[in-house]
């Protein structure tokens, strides 16, 4: 590094630049933007889970305000196609409005246009969709059986993709002294960013582009997908993400509604706005997390893992979403189920199953939350079978620090860290001994104490090879950043990722400040606009700080070189005798500020050296970590709970996270990501589920039925950082955006089962609701 860390550079707990506008209600979200002549959309959505559409009854006076797929198809609009190159993948096509058949409740079947949303809803309420109902797949395990109704008629079965990882473990199975099996399930959920999805589409007559202002995490990818569907060149499409009110994955796809809005804006030559309301979200975006595992672990008498085998099903819903496809989640299960553990025998078969539910979208943690839930239950199951403390068995099976870097059974390259130490620190921090003593004593109110642990490692900032392997419409390569020194000595950064709460306007400024010394107040980040930023696959997979942050550092270093060259000339010094420090180029005792150098380039070019870089103080630089395997952050979560055996309720008494994010650019932001992730994980663990009835109707469509954790349901999470810089990235950073949401269901499940053990009861599925816990207790009592 050219400059020592400063109070605003890498590692500083800097207040966010974003805060001021957001705290004054002056943010700019899609729904805040109106344009002259703007029309609003309301979608007519399928009331049934599976049916043929016989026709529509549209009142004559609204004929001009209602559109169906027939109108779009006539205009040459193409369905959304998200194909995976993995062998055997079955292709689904998703028309933006249903084409003769509906496959889930909430699927858009027609769209109504009016001056206000309320009036558009008035029209929608008068549209009658005449349907012939078909048999329904509501359960993925039933959907794979012979004779199940087919979601896509031309397929041989309802499986998007089957994968097989590992080899035979028959030898281990025959000889292992310990064998434990479990059936484990996670529920279908909604991601619930507080801002729903939103889009405002208009035709920019001057630029001759369709401009989609959308709450998206991946503007460049949406641009590509939208151009494909509209059948136009990508140069005719611009996607802009304004302030985005949370994403978590839900805003990481091309949505049918976006295609409809863009098409109508072109067709009607009017700005078109759609904002997803909460009921639409809870019904049509019930799209994540639903896994089922049949899993067996083999171990020796001390609990050392000898092998693992599993069949895993993921309910992928009805269509393949763009760009991640219907198989990403299940296929990932196969490659990451072994978790952070070191063992030699593994077999996993996975199925991405098509059902009559909304298409699966990767949610924060993606497959890891389910995988961790399964694997960490197995560690506790092995520990129980050998009569040892689960944390001991866990620590002994984790990859030890002396083996780092380590290639695991599925060829994941763990970069660094001390996984067992995270367990030991979690044991100490939660105060396990104290809880064990309290368990022995018993609680005066009859509640039962339990302590649970869960450890994971998270591959973040995925590389090129793995995504090339998936063969989906998006492969991350080099990430780029643009840097421009402004004539007054400030800095503009342009990145293709998108910040929707992660604070990148601040943290990327910290990175540039670290290199250049320009005050972060004078550093402006431009992001989330295909017209203004370099191409990027966007913000997903805990990648932005590693990838785009690395690109910002790289661009800043190259800018520094150009500044030094001009500075050396102005100082009458040799370039190699100069340093850039504290926002100025120094040569001995003399110095010239970046501001003066910028002034020279822009306003006094007659003073420039003859050999100056003609690219000036503006450049684009690309970056990839030294390893293509991404980074591996890891953590152990420890939780103490009190379970009320009469009501089945769970109170979280303490929650500790011991984690290793490598170098933290802004520890305050890292803590915020972890706490937020834990809250979502608690939702997955204890509250969140979209139940379906036998006809495929979702039974939760408001926040009265679909519970997300509030202030009193989330504890004051305590965080302990272990800092092992990644050997492969700028500054040693690791991706951490998703990690918090991975371990809570596993840790809570283990804690609840620790509490219930005296009753002989056990839960293995999430959410662990009062009903689930009471029925487990009742089952044990039988």
């Amino acid at each position, binding site marked *: 590094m050219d400059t020592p860390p400063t109070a605003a550079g890498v590692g500083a707990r800097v*207040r*966010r630049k*974003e*805060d*001021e*506008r*957001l*705290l*004054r*209600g*002056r*943010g*700019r*979200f899609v*729904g*805040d933007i*109106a344009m002259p002549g703007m029309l609003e959309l309301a979608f007519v959505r399928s009331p049934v889970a599976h049916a043929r559409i016989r026709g529509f009854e549209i009142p004559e006076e609204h004929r001009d305000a209602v559109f169906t797929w027939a109108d779009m198809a006539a205009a040459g609009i193409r369905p959304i196609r998200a194909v995976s190159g993995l062998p055997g993948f079955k292709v689904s096509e998703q028309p933006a409005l249903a084409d003769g058949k509906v496959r889930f409740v909430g699927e858009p079947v027609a769209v109504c246009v009016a001056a*206000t949303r*309320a009036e558009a809803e008035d029209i929608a309420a008068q549209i009658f969709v005449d349907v012939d109902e078909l048999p329904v797949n509501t359960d993925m395990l039933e959907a794979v059986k012979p004779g199940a109704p087919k979601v896509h008629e031309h397929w041989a079965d309802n499986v998007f993709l089957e994968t097989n990882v590992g080899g035979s473990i028959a030898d281990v199975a025959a000889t292992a002294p310990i064998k434990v099996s479990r059936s484990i399930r996670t529920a279908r959920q909604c991601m*619930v*960013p*507080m*801002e*729903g999805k939103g889009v405002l589409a208009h035709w920019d007559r001057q630029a001759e582009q369709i401009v989609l202002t959308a709450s998206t995490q991946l503007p460049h990818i949406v641009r590509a997908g939208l151009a494909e569907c509209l059948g136009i060149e990508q140069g005719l499409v611009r996607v802009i993400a304004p*302030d*985005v*009110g*949370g994403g*978590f994955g839900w805003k990481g796809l091309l949505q049918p509604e976006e295609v409809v809005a863009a098409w109508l804006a072109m067709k009607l030559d009017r700005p078109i706005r759609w*904002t997803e*309301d*909460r009921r639409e979200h809870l019904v049509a975006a019930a799209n994540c997390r639903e896994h089922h595992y049949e899993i067996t672990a083999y171990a020796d008498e001390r609990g050392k893992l000898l092998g693992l085998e599993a069949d895993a099903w993921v309910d992928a819903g009805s269509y393949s979403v763009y760009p991640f496809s219907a198989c990403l989640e299940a296929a990932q299960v196969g490659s990451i189920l072994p978790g952070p553990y070191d063992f030699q025998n593994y077999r996993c078969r996975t199925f991405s199953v098509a059902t009559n539910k909304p298409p699966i979208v990767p949610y924060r943690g993606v497959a890891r939350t389910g995988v961790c839930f399964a694997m960490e239950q197995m560690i506790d199951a092995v520990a129980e079978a050998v009569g040892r403390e689960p944390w001991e068995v866990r620590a002994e099976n984790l990859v030890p620090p002396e083996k780092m870097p380590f290639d695991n059974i599925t060829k994941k390259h763990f970069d660094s860290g001390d996984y067992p130490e995270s367990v030991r620190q979690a044991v100490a921090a939660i105060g396990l001994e104290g809880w064990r003593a309290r368990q022995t004593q018993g609680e005066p109110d009859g509640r039962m104490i339990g302590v649970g642990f869960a450890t994971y490692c998270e591959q973040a900032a995925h590389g090129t090879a793995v995504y090339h392997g998936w063969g989906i419409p998006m492969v991350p390569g080099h990430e780029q950043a643009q840097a421009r020194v402004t004539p007054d000595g400030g800095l503009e950064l342009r990145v293709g990722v998108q910040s*929707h*709460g*992660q*604070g990148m306007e601040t943290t990327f400024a910290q990175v540039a400040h670290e290199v250049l010394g320009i005050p972060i107040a004078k550093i402006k980040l431009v992001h989330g606009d295909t017209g203004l930023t370099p191409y990027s696959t966007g913000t997903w997979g805990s990648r932005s700080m590693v990838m785009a942050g690395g690109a910002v550092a790289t661009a800043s270093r190259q800018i520094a070189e150009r500044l030094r060259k001009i500075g050396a000339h102005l100082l009458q010094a040799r370039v190699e005798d100069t340093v850039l420090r504290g926002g100025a180029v120094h040569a001995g005792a003399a110095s010239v500020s970046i501001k003066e150098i910028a002034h020279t380039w822009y306003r006094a070019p007659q003073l420039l050296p003859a050999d100056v870089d003609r690219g000036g103080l503006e450049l684009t630089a690309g970056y990839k970590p030294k390893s293509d395997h991404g980074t591996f952050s890891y953590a152990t979560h420890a939780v103490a709970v009190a379970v009320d055996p009469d009501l089945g309720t769970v109170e979280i008494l303490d929650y500790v996270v011991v984690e290793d994010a490598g170098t933290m650019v802004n520890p*305050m*932001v890292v*803590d*915020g990501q*972890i*706490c*937020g*992730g*834990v*809250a*979502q994980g608690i939702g997955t663990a204890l509250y969140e589920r979209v139940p379906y009835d036998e006809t495929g109707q979702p039974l939760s469509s*408001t*926040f*009265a039925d679909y519970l*997300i954790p*509030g*202030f*009193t349901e*989330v504890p*004051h*999470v305590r965080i302990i950082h272990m800092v092992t810089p990644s050997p492969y990235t700028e500054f040693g950073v690791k991706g951490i955006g998703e990690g*918090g949401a991975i371990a809570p269901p596993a840790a809570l499940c283990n804690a609840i089962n620790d509490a219930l053990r005296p009753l002989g009861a056990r839960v293995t599925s999430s959410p662990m609701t009062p009903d689930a816990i009471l029925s487990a207790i009742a089952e044990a009592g039988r």
Partner: protein
Amino acid sequence: MTKTITLTINGRRVTAQVSPRTHLADFLREQQLLTGTHLGCEHGVCGACTLLIDGQPARSCITYAVACDGRAVTTVEGLDADPTAAELRDAFSAEHGLQCGFCTPGMLVAARDVVLRKPDADDRQIRVEMSGNLCRCTGYVGIVNAIRRVLDARKTNAG
């Protein structure tokens, strides 16, 4: 089917035509261009749309504009000069009590009410009093810390 209402919005007297079905948040956002009030659920649970009616926090998504005739409405934009809100803004930033910022206007209005109405609240009481506002980003820790910071500072200054 419109009605004429006259109300005070952020200290300004406003007369407007509203459809009775237009809720207060839509009226403020679409007709008054005050987009700081956000809509997160439109059925009264999430709290993103919380603002002040006659000084008391209220849900603007399930309160109809027509019912606010004669009332004084204060949105987050109207709290710029409010000293309690200023303390909270500073504390929210210092404690990282916001990420995406979508729930934040409602959070500030609710937090201001807690500071004024429950000056002796402990952390548990802060959480109970704030439980009508949902956040999906922060895990609430930063928000609780921010309110704690303001309450503590007020006690120190008073003592």
